[in-house]
């Protein structure tokens, strides 16, 4: 996405609720290609609140991915494998 001239963007969005729903469909990969290109090309770069929201949604997901994942303890992995092998043998 290009870097739009923020001074030329409108500062209010009359359809913010609907836009927010569309925006989440897009970020979730659930929008159709038409919905996506229509919104990105015809709305987002002209609308400041939606432009900001879009970047916020993306940033939150990045933060979640980088901070909220965890690794299973090795002892858990070992224990599961051992129990399953036991199961096979029995």
């Amino acid at each position, binding site marked *: 996405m290009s870097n739009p001239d923020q001074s030329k963007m409108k500062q209010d969005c009359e359809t913010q609720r609907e836009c927010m729903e569309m925006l989440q469909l897009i970020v*979730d990969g659930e929008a159709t290609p038409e919905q996506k290109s229509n919104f990105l090309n015809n709305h987002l770069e002209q609308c400041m609140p939606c432009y900001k929201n879009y970047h916020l949604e993306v940033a939150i997901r990045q933060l979640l991915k980088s901070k*909220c994942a965890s690794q299973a303890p090795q002892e858990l*992995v070992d224990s599961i494998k051992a129990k399953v092998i036991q199961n096979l043998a029995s």
Partner: protein
Amino acid sequence: MEFEETPKQQYSETEKQNIFNNEFMPHINSMYNFGYRLTLDQDDSKDLVQDTYLKAYRFIDSFQQGTNAKAWLFRILKNSFINDYRKKSKEPSKVDYQEVESYYNSEEVDRQITPDLRVEALQDMIGDEISNALNSLDVDFRTVIILCDLEGFKYDEMAKILDIPIGTVRSRLHRARNLLKEKLSEYAKQMGYKNA
């Protein structure tokens, strides 16, 4: 129950072992994380994940190769959590579901949401803020965020994992994200971001 829907396969012992090692075990980190975010307790999470994997192995004939193993495992884990752990978990008793959902579906809430949380504030959240914010949400809201944003499940997969209609997946996600943003704005304010 998840094991009764699909026609039963009849795998040989070798096939079972292959499926378990190559299709089930690679999801262990995601499964552990899901278990941890549901129970908010490391020991409970280990028990829950182990139970889930043993159950998956026991009912492996209900798993159809070529279908989504991760979604299948997540569904078993979620059901085990509801049946075995939710009752004894340390969380306070749940508020009425319908009530929560209809409250968060009201226009009121959307108006309250501050859209001013800034990306710069998020970038300064280098500690446990996001993790704490996520953990503070009601378990049903927490769950949809984990499934969608962390694990990348599609809405239809989430609907199957959670046994709810797609429309509910969407509205619950929408509310969950608003609540998460609200929490993050609180943190941002504490960090000194005025407009957050």
